[in-house]
């Protein structure tokens, strides 16, 4: 599958995602410059982590207005796959491709630790390598990952099954101590109603190789390039 990684000034996980997609998963992978207006035929678009435009104003807010984001929006609306990791997730919230917003972490400090995630959906291509209820270990590294939305919007998100990953303890149970950034309903990752746009705060690209002691993230990136074609069909087939 042709994969494109958008490079914004301040992106700093672009090379890491490239490494996994290109060298581990052996996909045709290219960088897309933020000032371009074409996705060059990429089927998977990744908005990588980092501090786009220094995260000045709000995390992800200036990147949401980059020229390439119009093309990303069209791609998403046409059912194409878009994956936002960390700062990329923040951008998806800022563009409105995903609902909700981010606040600063509960203790107002940058948080760089391994967390446990519970897989809440396994009917999406993204999660085709996991089963519902699986507990994954992944690193997080962010200062603004405290997900928030109104009560009704969160209920709606839950009702539509758009919560894909939640912060849990090692045994797979929710508890305040495992939800370190303080996200509402322990939300770590969500998708859009069509299931083709996914955003999450943890970094699957940093835990995709045996050598680094953890391959829990490989399934997600493998899922992202699995199958090809239109993701809407896969999502619909899954329910």
């Amino acid at each position: 599958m042709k994969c494109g990684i958008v490079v914004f000034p301040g992106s700093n996980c672009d090379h890491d995602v490239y490494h996994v997609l290109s060298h581990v998963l052996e996909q045709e992978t290219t960088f897309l410059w933020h000032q371009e207006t074409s996705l060059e035929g990429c089927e998977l678009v990744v908005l990588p982590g980092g501090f786009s435009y220094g995260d000045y104003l709000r995390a992800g807010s200036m990147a949401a207005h980059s020229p390439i984001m119009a093309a990303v929006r069209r791609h998403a609306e046409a059912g194409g796959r878009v994956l936002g990791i960390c700062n990329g997730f923040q951008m998806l919230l800022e563009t409105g491709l995903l609902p909700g917003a981010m606040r600063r972490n509960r203790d107002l400090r940058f948080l760089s630790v391994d967390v446990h995630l519970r897989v809440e959906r396994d009917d999406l291509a993204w999660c085709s390598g996991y089963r519902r209820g699986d507990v994954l270990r992944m690193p997080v590294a962010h200062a603004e990952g405290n997900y928030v939305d109104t009560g009704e919007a969160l209920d709606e998100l839950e009702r539509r099954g758009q919560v894909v990953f939640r912060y849990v303890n090692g045994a797979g149970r929710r508890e305040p101590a495992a939800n370190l950034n303080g996200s509402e309903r322990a939300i770590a990752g969500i998708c859009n109603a069509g299931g083709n746009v996914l955003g999450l705060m943890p970094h699957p690209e940093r835990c995709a190789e045996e050598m680094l002691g953890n391959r829990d993230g490989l399934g997600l990136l493998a899922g992202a390039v699995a199958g090809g074609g239109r993701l809407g069909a896969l999502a619909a087939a899954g329910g």
Partner: protein
Amino acid sequence: MTTTPSSAAGEPVVDSALAADHGLTGEEFGGLCDLLGRSPTCTELGIASALYSEHCSYKSSKIHLRRFPTRSRRVVHGPGENAGVVDIGHGWVAAFKMESHNHPSFIEPYQGAATGVGGILRDVFTMGARPIACLDSLRFGEIDGERGARMRHLVDGVVRGIGDYGNCVGIPTVGGETGFHRSYNGNILVNAFALGVCREDRIFTATASGAGNPILYAGSRTGRDGIHGATMASEAFDAESEAKRPTVQVGDPFTEKVLLEASLEAMRSGVVLGVQDMGAAGLTSSCFEMAARGGAGVDIDLDLVPLREASLTPYEIMLSESQERMVFVTQRGQEEAVVEILSRWGLEASKIGRVTDSGRARLTFRGRTVADMPVEPLVDGAPVYDRPAAPPADLRERQRVVDCEAPEDPLRALRSLLGTPELGDKTWIHRQYDSTVRSNTIVGPGSDAAVLRLKGTPSALALTSDVNPSYCWLEPRMGGRQAVAEAVRNLATVGAEPVGMTNCLNFGSPENPAIAWQLRECIEGMAEACRAFDVPVISGNVSLYNETEGEAVHPTPTVAIVGVIDRLEDIGAEGDLHLVLGCGFWRPGDRVVLLGCDSGEYGGSAYQRLLQRVEAGRPPAVDLEAEAALCALLRQSRRAGWLSGCHDLADGGLLLALAECAMARGIGLRGAVGCGPLALFSESQARAIVTVPAARTEELLAAAEARGVAAREVGDVGGDRLVLDFEGGTVDSAIGDLRRVWTEALPRAVG
């Protein structure tokens, strides 16, 4: 043009009093006038004072620094460049350096620490190397109680500053150390290390060459921040230091990140000849040092320097330490290619001058020549002092042997040590730093040595920074030796061969003979160890005048050594690399073996300092041959794939090291040692704990014997308790209890 330079309008008259205000001695000022053949202009005085400052000229340390070995078959660039460069194999080289940002961090902790990280990153990427790792070595004063309130503020600010800067640029902070001692109450130490890698044929140097070639200025505009930062960093603090807050620079990590990417891209373009960042002393040191390296001169039109406000004087422009600025020298007529790359990254670039063959730096401003100075005599001919050195008057008193009382209950003593900020868990700090970005981190912070894979090769790099200031205070030469020995040992625990060292020498005022003696002795001890282990010093930094109202910091020669693991594959025979290379018990049934001998040494030990509240005697002796034998054994055992884990014995001694191994993953030990309760806390050097599968024990013991390293089996890994029999009793504790004390220590102390 042969106009005699003159001060700009409104600038003060230059005389010996103004020179003295700039930190120049009468002799230095006289020498400057002789060199110029006239009285300097105001701008020239400012330039000379910066270049002659301790920070830029190393005038008090130069004669001692010559003691360091600086060559080996791996050294590509030794001291003198922005960062030293060593060959790490497979066509790759590593560029690294450590630098202090002590003075600014004490005055303004957040910006001081942040710009420390920014500066060291620029030092690395100006060499053409992409930064892949940072370490930070921090020393704070007492943080307890009411008196510690300011120190807690400093800890918080420094940690946030380092984190916010490194995290944003996207360079992982993979290790370092943090210590607390009252000698840092008036002067904290912030030593930042960065390492970058590049292909061996892609290295750049900061050289201006080729008359007529254009000089480009890139990055942030020049403002008034940081003026005379280098001079401030060359003075002791006094009651008025607070007023120096405006001399602290303000950092912008986002600009740094784009400057990094744009610079690396520009260097790949093939038209860049030389690159230099504007660090200490800003445009002054970058122009003069680049010209000096190329044996060239420069003509700079200060009207072309991009400014934040139009009213800056030439003096201010030359001395500003505004951050995130670079100078490029390109091929003549090719500057547009570089400007285009920079502007694609949203950076301003302008041509501010050209390289000449005059050997002089000529600066013009509004049609007037404001400086015309010979380059080489100012840079390489800066004064060098052989300051009088003598042991401190109270040395004998310091080294008087004090009897150490044996603990009535070693477990209680262990818990007390684990509960100090000094020896407590440092996760509160580490988790504010991104340690996994760039996806190379196999072992991150909190271990003996960090380990990073080197993508595209079978190898890995190992990094560590070490120093024990109490040892250095009691006996500087032994302390200097120990810092190097411990760093080499830490690398050996992961099987890495040391390939190069950088350091940051933090001392008080060299004008005090006792401090000059400490400096000389520490360097001598370090140099002895470097020669013994064949580790070249390839870069470094000296920070003097770390004292306030006559109270100097403990001598703190921070050492950072980089090692290479040739084949990671060999080491992982016994399981996952991050488990095997970390320093914790993880597999029940493994045998625990103690390597090395104890001689019951307590001078400057954690037990003596933190529990007996005494700092006296002689520090543990460092037997360089014994260290070399131990390290060779560890590397051999790693290469052979025998070990499932390894941890060296350092501060706190054997019991603390065993507790750390147990707390790492909550897996315990049942064992016995043949020593009394006090020896559990002895800090004799050249020791390590290794774990091996039972089937490998024989091979390990035989190899140890062959190398003359004492080895004894201590017990077996397993269970959730630390149980250790010693002569006269047993330590027996649930690991969870120890962990609680250990993990709560620092968060509680910083409030």
